[in-house]
């Protein structure tokens, strides 16, 4: 019996990228330590989720930024081989978010990422205000084919985080930033972002790119064009859900867990 093409069959890559702020302020009140712990504790569940989904090959990378940008893990690494190395905050380090987003833009091209992957998951965790022009980096990121379609999640640690920048990163004002005011809430959000979101993203099959449709004209079926246009045009992230959502899901993505305990950050 012919086995045509079997050697070329492969599951589809899911690129998952942590974008971690390691500026000086992350050293205060144990924020960086809590983040390291939360990510480490989420790994076993990520591994289990990856095992249970043979149709996706989860590949993880870690990008950090402070007064510069560095790939802590530059090679897309299968989740089964992923080991978290604790990140240390940089003493008096600034928050070069724009530079980090520009670096991501250089990576999220069709040339480097190929064509058959699932939409990548980008999780940005920060506690501060950008020290550079983040808008420029964000524009570059959203101009890339993969960056535009990525599932972008923004987690703000503490009250001082630049929620406006995170909101713009997420790219959909309907879905606010996840605010982590204590280690327990941070751990919940990290687990949700790394496990629940990646599981949802890897549902096979396409869906209409409605927001890529030409704007205007008569809507199908006599309805309103806006009826079906979820995210803003040119910015496809529709997967981050407000913590206050009355529904258990929004847009097919399970809602994140509610915050826990009192804020200490």
């Amino acid at each position, binding site marked *: 019996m*012919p086995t045509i093409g*079997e050697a070329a069959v492969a599951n589809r890559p899911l690129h998952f990228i942590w974008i971690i702020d390691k500026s000086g302020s992350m050293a205060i009140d144990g924020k960086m330590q809590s983040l390291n712990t939360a990510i480490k504790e989420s790994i076993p569940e990520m591994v289990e989720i990856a095992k249970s989904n043979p149709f996706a090959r989860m590949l993880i990378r870690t990008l950090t930024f402070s007064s510069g940008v560095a790939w802590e893990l530059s090679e897309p690494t299968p989740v089964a081989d992923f080991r978290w190395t604790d990140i240390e905050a940089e003493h008096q380090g600034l928050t070069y978010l724009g530079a980090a987003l520009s670096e991501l833009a250089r990576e999220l091209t069709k040339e480097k990422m190929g064509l058959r992957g699932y939409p990548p998951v980008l999780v940005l965790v920060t506690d501060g205000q950008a020290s550079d022009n983040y808008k420029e980096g964000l524009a570059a990121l959203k101009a890339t084919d993969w960056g535009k379609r990525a599932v972008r999640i923004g987690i703000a640690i503490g009250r001082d985080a630049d929620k406006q920048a995170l909101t713009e990163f997420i790219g959909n004002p309907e879905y606010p930033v996840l605010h982590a005011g204590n280690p327990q809430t941070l751990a919940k959000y990290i687990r949700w972002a790394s496990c629940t979101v990646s599981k949802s993203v890897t549902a*096979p*099959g*396409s869906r209409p790119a409605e927001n890529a449709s030409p704007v205007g004209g008569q809507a199908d079926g006599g309805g309103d064009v806006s009826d079906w246009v979820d995210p803003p045009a040119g910015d496809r992230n529709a997967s981050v859900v407000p913590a206050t959502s009355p529904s258990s899901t929004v847009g097919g993505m399970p809602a994140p867990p509610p915050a826990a305990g009192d804020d200490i950050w």
Partner: protein
Amino acid sequence: MFWPFSGKPRAVVDHEQSADANAVANASANTVPNAPEHSDSLAAQAWPEPVWRIVGESVRGASHIKDNKPNQDALLWKQVSANGSRNIIALADGHGSTRFFRSQRGSSFAVAVTAAILEQFLRDIPSPYNPSQCKHAAESFLPDMIVDAWLAAVAEDLACEPFRDDELSMVEDAEGAEQRNRLMRNPHKAYGSTLLAVVTHENFILGVQIGDGEIKAIMENGDVAEIVAEDPGNFANETASLSSERPQAKFRVAYHHLAGRPPVGLMITTDGYANAIETQKFDGVLREWIEGLRDEGIEKIQECMSGVLNHASQFGSGDDCTVAFVFRLNSDFSQWPTMVGQSPPSNSSDRGNVDPTDGPGVPSPSDSDVNRRSSAGEEPLG
């Protein structure tokens, strides 16, 4: 129903020329009357009239089996002429999210209405040997006709069976109340589907597509060419759809005048199979299929297709996989690339040329032979 093909296409009336079919069929590209400069030709030599045979299969995706969802793809083909030169093949991929809970019907409607329209196109087009008129008629009329017919089929289905409470509750539970309300305002969205279709004719190949999936040609020298150019917007699980806003504008219609040797085969596939194959190996896999059709025969490949596609879904995309091959029996494989360790065909007659009458497993063609598959193991209908 208004059939524009039954009259002269507008705007090209002045260019119409009568052409003797046989004369044109044996002519080179340069001698085809009224051939437009932008007409795409797949080859440039004298050629025998193509004798095509079709194999195809659609299997339920491994993830759909796991989630107890149906196969939402549909496949239909029809041999229109007894000699096998004229065929219609249509595939469709219904969207998989919960909100598209009737996409299985949507994809079935898509292939059915498209096949009917394309058959009418083949029957009624006034000058099938005039490239510019064929191209113009296809581009000008097919998208509107297909969309109108698909929406009419959806409307009829909704009239017969309005949304049930359990269907709407399923959407609300999975995607929220607002999504349910949106569906109520635009019920045809629940039927969302892509569409890929090919028409073969002794003088041309026509591709019609909206959304993702692949329509490729494999040439006698093993090269792979696009029948319908890719839409860069169909990427990362996003696709244009029959249920999109103004879907006519998202159709890609590609007319290829056969001015030289026709391809040895055409492959039409939904994204489930394409996503299961590593991109850089895809062309090689197409050549494997062609070699299988050449060496094993049509029937053997038809028999093994469900197994091959199930493997691709299980170990690749997880999605429904639907593939059709249009294989030219009178191909010349003398220029076919030789794999390492493989003996080249000594000449085109002992291995290269496949005789439609004595090749292994060649089914007898019959006019109006319709094949339809929508899930593994189903028998063709019609």
